């Protein structure tokens, strides 16, 4: 059974991963990224405890969505059509995936 909590945790967790990726882009110390990654892993474990791995793992792809949105807002990168198509498709995929997990 996958509760809303697990989904929330994963969403928070994937947002943390983007902290990791952007830190690479921004050339911040990698250590900062890895400590965020640690928190992310902890959230992932909490989600995995009750959630299905076959669902939760692909949901990590939301990382790409957060990274892209962050790069638009924080880094001020120009909006990019391919990226927009990509993140919409990923969100759609996660939505379909979420429906499949409920019994």
């Amino acid at each position, binding site marked *: 059974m996958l509760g809303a909590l697990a989904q929330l945790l994963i969403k928070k967790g994937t947002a943390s991963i983007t902290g990791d990726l952007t830190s*690479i882009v921004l050339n911040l110390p990698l250590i900062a990224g890895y400590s965020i*990654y640690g928190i992310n*892993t*902890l959230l*992932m*474990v*909490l989600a*995995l*405890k009750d959630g*299905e*791995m*076959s*669902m939760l*793992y*692909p949901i*990590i*792809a939301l990382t*790409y969505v957060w990274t*892209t949105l962050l790069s638009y807002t924080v880094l001020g*990168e120009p909006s*990019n*059509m*391919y*990226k*927009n*198509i*990509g*993140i*919409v*498709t*990923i*969100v*759609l*995929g*996660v*939505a*379909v*995936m*979420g*429906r*499949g*997990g409920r019994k």
Partner: protein
Amino acid sequence: MSPLVRSMLMVFGASLIGSFGMAFLKMGAERTTKSIWSFVNTRLVFGVVLFLGSSVLYVAGIKGGQLSVLYPMVSLGYIWGLVWAKIFFNEPLTRQKFAGLGLILVGVFFVGLGSQDQQPPAPTAAIQQIRR
């Protein structure tokens, strides 16, 4: 070995290692209780170690450019993950999961396609490699 092939192999390895990391994380997660110490169990720690190894390989791999090729390859890990979920945890593989995964893979491909001209170092060299 050309740089692109090398980074493809690295990212491929990272996706495989990462998916095993996820499986061990799941095994470890199932053994946790309310006690904080229950989080320090062999399977969980091994999963984290695999993740670290996978991310090192991944970072080294995507330096090789051609993100439209390398990004979707990272997502190969999700496919492995589905297989391990079936084998190790006997999770049902529903049509929605396959459909959702398919959409995610397509989405990641597009994000990679949109990302490659923003990554300064190697793309042009990598594209030349492909054309050869």
